[in-house]
C-alpha cells in the first residue's frame, strides 16, 4: 500500500503546482515508511520539505500555508505523536473557514500511520480516530487497500477542506495490489461494500478489514452470508449505506481496532439504534480493542480483535 500512497503524491504534485509535502524525514529519507520516497528528488526541496522535529509546527505551518495559496500534505510520523498537533487541528484547521465566513480556508491533508500489529515500539500503534472524528469541520479517512489508498488520497488532496488521512500500518507492506496511476480519485463521504451478503452486516475499516474478510470466509463455511462494509470515511459517516444493509440483513457487527469506549463503533451502533431499531433482529455487537492502553508488542495481538472474536460475535447475533 505504501507505494500506492507515494504514487498518489507523485500524480497530484505533478498536476498541481501548489501541492507541497512536509513532515519529519519525508525528504532524503522518503519517510520512515517510504510513503514519500523519491518525491524530493523529483520535485525539489521547496515542495518536499523536512520540517523541524515539532508536530505543532507541522500543523500550524500547514494552516498558514493553506490559507495563503498552498495545499500542504503533511505527514505525522506516527499517530501517537499527533497530539501536539491537535490544538492547531481543533482550534484552527477545522475552524478557519467557519471563523472567517469562507474568507480563508484550510485545504490541508494530514497523513499519519494508524494502528498496531507490526511489533513497533511504544506509542507507535495507536488508533485514536475517535478524537478526530468528534471534531466538526474536518474529514477523517482510512483506506483499506492500495487501490483505495490511491483514490482516496487523491480525493483528500483535492478536497477544499482539511482531511485527516489515517494509514493502517499493517497494510503498508502486507497488502499488494495492482494500482492504476491514472489520477482517478475515489469519492469521500461514502462507504464501500467489500462483499455482499444477506444474513449479517459487518462494518469495519482500515486493517481490520483483513481479519473481517478472513472471518467471513469461515462464516461462509458455516452457512452465514455476511455483507462487509468498509467505512472508509470515518467522519462524516455514510449511515444510509449501513442502514440499507441492516434493513436487508437484520444484524449488525462493528469491528474496529480502537478502544471500544466512545469508539467510532459507538456512533454507528447509536445511529442504527435510532434509525434502524425495528430492523434489528438481534443486539448490535461491537468487536473492538479493549479500554486499556495499547500494550507493548508482546501482547498486541491479544489487544487487536482476532478472527475468532469476529466469528463469535457474528454467531452471537444468531444465538438470541
Amino acid at each position, binding site marked *: 500500500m505504501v507505494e500506492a500512497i507515494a504514487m498518489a503524491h507523485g500524480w497530484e504534485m505533478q498536476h498541481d503546482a501548489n501541492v507541497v509535502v512536509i513532515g519529519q524525514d519525508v525528504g532524503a529519507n522518503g519517510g520512515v515508511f517510504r510513503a514519500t520516497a523519491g518525491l524530493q528528488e523529483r520535485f525539489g526541496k*521547496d515542495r518536499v520539505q523536512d520540517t523541524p522535529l515539532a508536530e505543532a509546527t507541522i500543523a500550524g505551518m500547514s494552516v498558514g500555508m493553506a*490559507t495563503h495559496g498552498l495545499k500542504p500534505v503533511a505527514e505525522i510520523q506516527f499517530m501517537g505523536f499527533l497530539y501536539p498537533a491537535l490544538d492547531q487541528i481543533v482550534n484552527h484547521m477545522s475552524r478557519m473557514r467557519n471563523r472567517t465566513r469562507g474568507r480563508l480556508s484550510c485545504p490541508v491533508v494530514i497523513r499519519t500511520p494508524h494502528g498496531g500489529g507490526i511489533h513497533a515500539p511504544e506509542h507507535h500503534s495507536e488508533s485514536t480516530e475517535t478524537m478526530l472524528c468528534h471534531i*466538526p*469541520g474536518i474529514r477523517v479517512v482510512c483506506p483499506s487497500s492500495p487501490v483505495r489508498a490511491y483514490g482516496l488520497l487523491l480525493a483528500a488532496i483535492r478536497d477544499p477542506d482539511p482531511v485527516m488521512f489515517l494509514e493502517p500500518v499493517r497494510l503498508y507492506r502486507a497488502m499488494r495490489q495492482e494500482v492504476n496511476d491514472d489520477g482517478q480519485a475515489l469519492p469521500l463521504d461514502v462507504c464501500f461494500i467489500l462483499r455482499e451478503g444477506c444474513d449479517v452486516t459487518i462494518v469495519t475499516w482500515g486493517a481490520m478489514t483483513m481479519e473481517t474478510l478472513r472471518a467471513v470466509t469461515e462464516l461462509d463455511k458455516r452457512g452465514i452470508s455476511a455483507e462487509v462494509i468498509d467505512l472508509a470515511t470515518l467522519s462524516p459517516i455514510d449511515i444510509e449505506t449501513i442502514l440499507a444493509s441492516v434493513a436487508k440483513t437484520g444484524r449488525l457487527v462493528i469491528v474496529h481496532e480502537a478502544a471500544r469506549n466512545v469508539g467510532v463503533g459507538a456512533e454507528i451502533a447509536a445511529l442504527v439504534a435510532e434509525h434502524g431499531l425495528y430492523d434489528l433482529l438481534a443486539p448490535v455487537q461491537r468487536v473492538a480493542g479493549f479500554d486499556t492502553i495499547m500494550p507493548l508488542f508482546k501482547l498486541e495481538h491479544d489487544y487487536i480483535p482476532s478472527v475468532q472474536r469476529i466469528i463469535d460475535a457474528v454467531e452471537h447475533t444468531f444465538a438470541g
Partner: protein
Amino acid sequence: MAPLPQFAADTALVLRMYRAMTLVRVFDAKAVNLQRTGQLGTYPSSLGHEAAHVGVGAAMRPEDVLAPVYREFGTQLWRGVTMTEILTYWGGDERGSDFAVPRQDFAWCVPIATQTLHAAGAAMAFKVLKQPRCALAYIGDGGTSEGAFYEALNLAGARDLPVVFVIINNGWAISVPVAAQTAAQTLAQKAVAAGIPGVQVDGNDVFAVREVVGEALEAARRGAGPSLIEALTYRLSDHTTADDASRYRSGQEVKDAWALEPLIRIRDFLINAGLWDGAKEQALLDECTLKVDAAVTEYLGKAKPSSDAMFEHLFAALPARLHEQRLIARKYASKPSGH
C-alpha cells in the same frame, strides 16, 4: 536619545499616525462602555498600546499579512479592518472576521501563541510562491511561555522565512507579571534560541516602533530572514472587561505607567513642531466620536444571524449527513433580534 527617523519629516504621515492613535483610543472607551451596558461581549481593551499597534500598522505594506492576537485594534484599523467588524466579532458574531479589507489577514486568535505558526506558514507560502510579501505575528509577554511561540521562531530561523514576530510586553498576562513567566531578563533575547536577531523597542514611542518594525520587514522582504522585536509598553486597562486588575496589581503602578502613555508624547511632538493645537485636538476628538458612533449604530443595527450560519461555512459544501441537523437547528432557533 536616538535621532528621529527620516519619516518623521513626513508631516502627513505623522499626523495620520496621531489621528489613528486617537481614533483607537476613542473607539476603545466606547467599546468598554458598550460591554458595561450589555451591548457587547467580553472585550480586551487596547488602552496604552496605541503607539505599538499603530506603529506596526504604519510599518507594514498592504500586501503583507497580519496575524493578530486579540487586542491589536490599532494595527487592524490602520490596515482596513472596520470598527463595525471589530464590534461584530466581539459582539459574538463570526461575520466580524470576514474583513472586507484586508482579505488575507488572519482573524483574531484567542488560543495564545498559535498564530505565530500561522504567520510562519504564510511566510513559507510567500517563499515557495516567490511573492515579495512578509507576515507579521503579534504575541504577548505571557504568550512567550507557550511552546508554539518557540517553535515558530525556530522554524522561521531554520528556513529563513520572511516573517517578523512582535512581542507586546505590556507587563502582565492577566494577573501574572513578566518576572513570573520567565527568568530571561528580556523577551527579545528569546530570539537567540532560534539563531535570529532580537531587539527591544520603546513600545510607547510610535516613531521608534515604526522604524524598527519597518527595518525588520524590509530585511525579511529582501531575504535577510526573520526577526523578533520586543515592544515595551503597559496594559493601562484591566485584562478584559471580565477582569478586575485591582485584585493583583497596585494602583500606584498603574498611575506611574500613565505618565509614560503614548499619546501625550506624540502630541507634544506635534505641538512643538507647530503642527497641533487645542482646537485641532478638539476637532479630531469630535471627528473620532462621530466615526465611532456611526460604527456602533451600524453594529447595533445588524440582525442576529440565522441558525443556518452554523452550517454555512463548516465545509465548502455541507455533507449530506448534516442536512437534517440544519433543519433541526432551524426548528428550535431562538427568534432573530438585534440583541
